[in-house]
């Protein structure tokens, strides 16, 4: 079953067209990674799929419905989004931030119900955030903060979560624990995940499918073995790489090669 489909989507930012005729499908329960060089339109693609960018041609379908016809509050009951480099300007506590994510479910001026609080508590427990619940977001480390923001997305109880470079500022420990948590949710509650990932190796290890963008167009799509190939990578990223299978998973793993090593590799 297809949860998200982009059909001939072209989007422009100002006068410049950023996305050209993008089409792909994402299956329910899958982890789909968007990869590609800087400025290839990855973030624009996510913003188009989350109703943040409204000026585009073509159609984005969520569960078969054109998202233009879904009102934002309805949309927020099914999809949550974590933008890249999100900055919380004010010292909200973790608890306050999490309960905010029940906004689409609490109509009008009503206070959160006991069910809302139950949902928040469950997520807090699953993610091991109990000790942070009354801490303010500004006093947390980058890794803890990102975990709270992930929890905020999950409190929305979405069918699909969308992330823009969620692991960009995290150290390797937090990168893996973040993606492991996601993977857990994907397996246990059949959550569908769409993420822009900068790190090709993380994308290769965690994603079921990959879509590679370059200059606003899809250059390759499929499972990691199909997309992470040195020929494609060298062309798209304009650098030399080696691709070897990961010793444990067998998934493709990318090694970068500095230009100065070129003579060594020729031998």
């Amino acid at each position, binding site marked *: 079953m297809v949860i998200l489909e982009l059909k001939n989507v072209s989007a422009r930012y100002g006068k410049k067209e950023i996305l050209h005729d993008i089409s792909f499908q994402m299956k329910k329960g899958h982890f789909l990674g968007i990869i590609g060089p800087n400025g290839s339109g990855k973030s624009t693609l996510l913003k188009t799929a989350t109703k943040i960018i409204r000026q585009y041609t073509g159609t984005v379908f969520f569960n078969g419905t054109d998202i233009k016809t879904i009102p*934002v509050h309805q949309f927020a009951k099914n999809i949550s989004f974590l933008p890249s480099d999100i900055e919380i300007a004010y010292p909200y506590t973790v608890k306050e931030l999490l309960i905010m994510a029940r906004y689409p479910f609490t109509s009008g001026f009503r206070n959160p119900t006991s069910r809302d609080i139950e949902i928040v508590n469950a997520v807090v427990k699953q993610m091991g955030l109990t000790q942070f619940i009354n801490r303010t977001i500004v006093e947390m480390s980058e890794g803890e903060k990102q975990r709270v923001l992930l929890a905020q997305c999950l409190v929305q109880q979405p069918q699909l979560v969308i992330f823009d470079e969620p692991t960009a500022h995290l150290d390797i420990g937090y990168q893996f624990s973040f993606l492991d948590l996601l993977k857990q949710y994907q397996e246990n509650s059949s959550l569908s995940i769409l993420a822009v990932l900068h790190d090709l190796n993380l994308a290769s290890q965690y994603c079921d499918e990959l879509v590679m963008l370059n200059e606003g167009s899809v250059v390759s799509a499929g499972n990691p073995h199909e997309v992470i190939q040195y020929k494609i990578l060298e062309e798209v990223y304009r650098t030399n790489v080696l691709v070897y299978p990961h010793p444990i998973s067998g998934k493709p793993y990318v090694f970068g090669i500095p230009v100065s090593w070129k003579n060594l590799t020729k031998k």
Partner: protein
Amino acid sequence: MDLKQYPFEKTILMQVRLPRIWCGFLTGSGLAVSGLILQAILKNPLAESYTLGISGGASLGIAFGIVSGQMMAVPMFAFVGSVISIMIILATASLRKMSSGTLLLLGIMLNFIFSSFSLLVITFLQKERFMEAVVWFMGNLSSYHPETLKSAPLFLLPAYFITWIYWKHLNIFSLGEEKAITLGLDPEKKRYLWLILTGLITGYCVSLAGLVGFVGLVIPHTVRILVGTDHKRTIPAAILVGGSFLIIADTIARTIVKPIEIPVGVISGFFGGIFFVLILLKTSKKQKW
């Protein structure tokens, strides 16, 4: 104590002191609430109605009011000035999609242009009129018009209530536009409604007391330190703290160098500033913004 035995004191209390306290409360609470709203919807801790160009517009209104010679009409002119400046901000912002940072910068520039122009206007005034203008520019609680004091709460109190009902909006707005949309709140149009509301609140405050600085910027921050960041609590707290702060500042302004009355804006800026620096230094490093 029976007030009837003291007719003179009674008149002072009922006709001078209490209205002045009421005026201080309304002005202080209004500026604090509008600062709180703007800081949330623009996601910027430096936002307040004065940095958004509203005070510049108001001062231009005041200048024209004084030039017109109709002293009674100065509050009206101040109100119109602030509403016009918020309209300019709105019109520019809707023509070109702007980030909140750009919007703030635009407001500051607008403020410079308007303030310079109003200073130009008052330089051509006679000395007495000039002083009158300066007193308005500094903010004071003695030259309010009784009619304004009657009509202002009819708008301000319901406006506070509406703001409080929508506390959840402000929470979500303050997370930024992208988060707001994906949490089910479309900020585009609602942002304009909030801007109009704050423009009107500030307009009323300016028409009551002239340009009282500082309150709109600092009371919201003080309140966050006192009761936390959730707007369910900060809105009522800003009303109370903002209102009482200006009353206290005015009491000091009236009494500190008797019989000379210092404009309240001077006191609120001076003591309020020192007070706030002390809070900042005392607050643990954890709570920053």
